[in-house]
């Protein structure tokens, strides 16, 4: 059974800790299942870590009577052992405060997943001295994962990327991953940068290098969301102007990029646009229609379709849903739909 946020808060209260003095994200730690293998920790210079991250291997060599050494492609290191009487626990996916503050996770509770672990050997490699001996320490592994990034943070990442594209004069269809990580790495965690590129683009490889083809539609849509979420409604003409100026140069904004995200009211004077996200609407068919009709009395099929599309399945098309839950009439020569039942 997973702990709920309420249970975490209750524990905080019992412990007499003031939630106001804590960061909002809490990690609920859980032991993984029993041992799945021997685990070691190897302490390395940053350069050696870099080699491992790049996919290279290292080799431990030695005759039975000799001291063991660690070899990379071009260097040899002495192996040294360290031990501790302390208990060491691994927490995959755990975030440190620096990362939490930058990420602002959507949820304020981070649950753990099961991973494995049992014995822990610790080996230390350094360029310094000698001595080898293996020692065993007790350890248990704990799992963790993190949730969807908050939208504002995603926009911040996206802005870094589009500004870099602009300053480097790259094409949006050929954004090099490595240069992005190099230039933006000092500002944001690399995994976040890559995550953002994956969300807003398509990955491909050319001549051994990884590139991303960024989607103008997705970027324009996200920019619109950022603008719209700060106001109840916008003058349509003004919004369209600001929106076009806010997207990266070379991208063209179109209202059809906002399906299921925003709604235009062409009956009002002046015409307005406001944020309406399909994810925020009720999931049940009848409730969805009730909520849409209480927002607006009469809908054209073109306007309502993006907001009922997700309800369609094998057996239900948009047309079938409209027949079931709505009544049609004509307004100024255009077919419109309203509720079958009176809306309270």
């Amino acid at each position, binding site marked *: 059974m997973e*702990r709920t946020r309420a*249970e*975490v808060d209750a*524990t*905080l*209260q*019992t*412990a*007499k*800790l003031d939630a106001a*003095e*804590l*960061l909002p994200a*809490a*990690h*609920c*730690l*859980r*032991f*993984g*299942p*029993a041992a799945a*293998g*021997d*685990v*070691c*920790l*190897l*302490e*390395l*210079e*940053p350069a050696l*870590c870099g080699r*491992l*991250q*790049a*996919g*290279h*291997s290292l*080799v*431990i*060599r030695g005759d*039975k009577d000799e001291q*063991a050494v*660690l070899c990379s492609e071009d260097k040899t290191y002495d192996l040294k052992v360290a031990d501790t009487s*302390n*208990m*060491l*626990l*691994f927490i*995959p996916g*755990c975030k*440190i*405060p620096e990362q939490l503050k930058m990420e602002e996770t959507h949820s304020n509770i981070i649950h753990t997943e099961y991973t494995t672990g049992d014995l822990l050997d610790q080996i230390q490699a*350094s360029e310094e001295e000698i001595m080898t001996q293996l020692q065993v320490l*007790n350890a*248990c592994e*704990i799992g963790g994962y993190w949730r969807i990034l908050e939208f504002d943070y995603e926009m911040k990442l996206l802005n870094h990327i589009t500004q870099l594209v602009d300053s480097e004069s790259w094409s949006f269809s050929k954004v090099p991953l490595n240069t992005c990580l190099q230039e933006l790495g000092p500002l944001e965690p*690399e*995994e976040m940068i890559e995550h953002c590129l994956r969300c807003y683009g398509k990955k491909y490889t050319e001549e051994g290098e990884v590139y991303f083809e960024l989607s103008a539609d997705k970027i324009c849509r996200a920019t619109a969301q950022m603008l719209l979420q700060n106001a109840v409604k916008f003058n349509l003409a003004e919004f369209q102007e600001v929106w076009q100026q806010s997207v990266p140069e070379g991208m063209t904004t179109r209202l059809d990029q906002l399906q299921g995200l925003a709604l235009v009211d062409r009956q009002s004077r002046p015409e307005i646009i406001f944020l309406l996200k399909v994810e925020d609407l009720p999931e049940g068919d009848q409730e969805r229609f009730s909520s849409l009709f209480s927002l607006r009395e009469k809908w054209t099929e073109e306007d309502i379709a993006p907001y009922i599309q997700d309800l369609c399945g094998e057996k239900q098309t948009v047309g079938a849903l409209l027949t079931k839950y709505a009544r049609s009439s004509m307004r100024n020569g255009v077919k419109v739909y309203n509720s079958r039942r009176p809306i309270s």
Partner: protein
Amino acid sequence: MVQIVISSAGAGGLAEWVLMELQGEIEARHSTGLAGNLLGDLHYTTEGIPVLIVGHHILYGKIIHLEKPFAVLVKYTPGEQDCDELGCESSTRYLVTALIKNKILFKTRPKPIITNVPKKV
């Protein structure tokens, strides 16, 4: 000559884990052992100090950024299924599963939590 290869998961990048170091030992409350059980809640103060609530204890610690990161190695000893007609590869390998660049160290004495009335959630 003994050779043990330490290979990396690949250029796709390695996961980053955090190491938590505690003095003493954690014992299971029941004889069924630790596996699958909750350990506790880990919080951070707005100043970045880690706070761990384990059972009836609170521990305050500190985040240490490791100048020399750790690689987490999982030992892999090939079994019967890895044998082919030329024989078995008997060498042991280590696979790098993750990197650890930060550790949370708890070395102060745990403070007991004194409760009067348990809160019903």
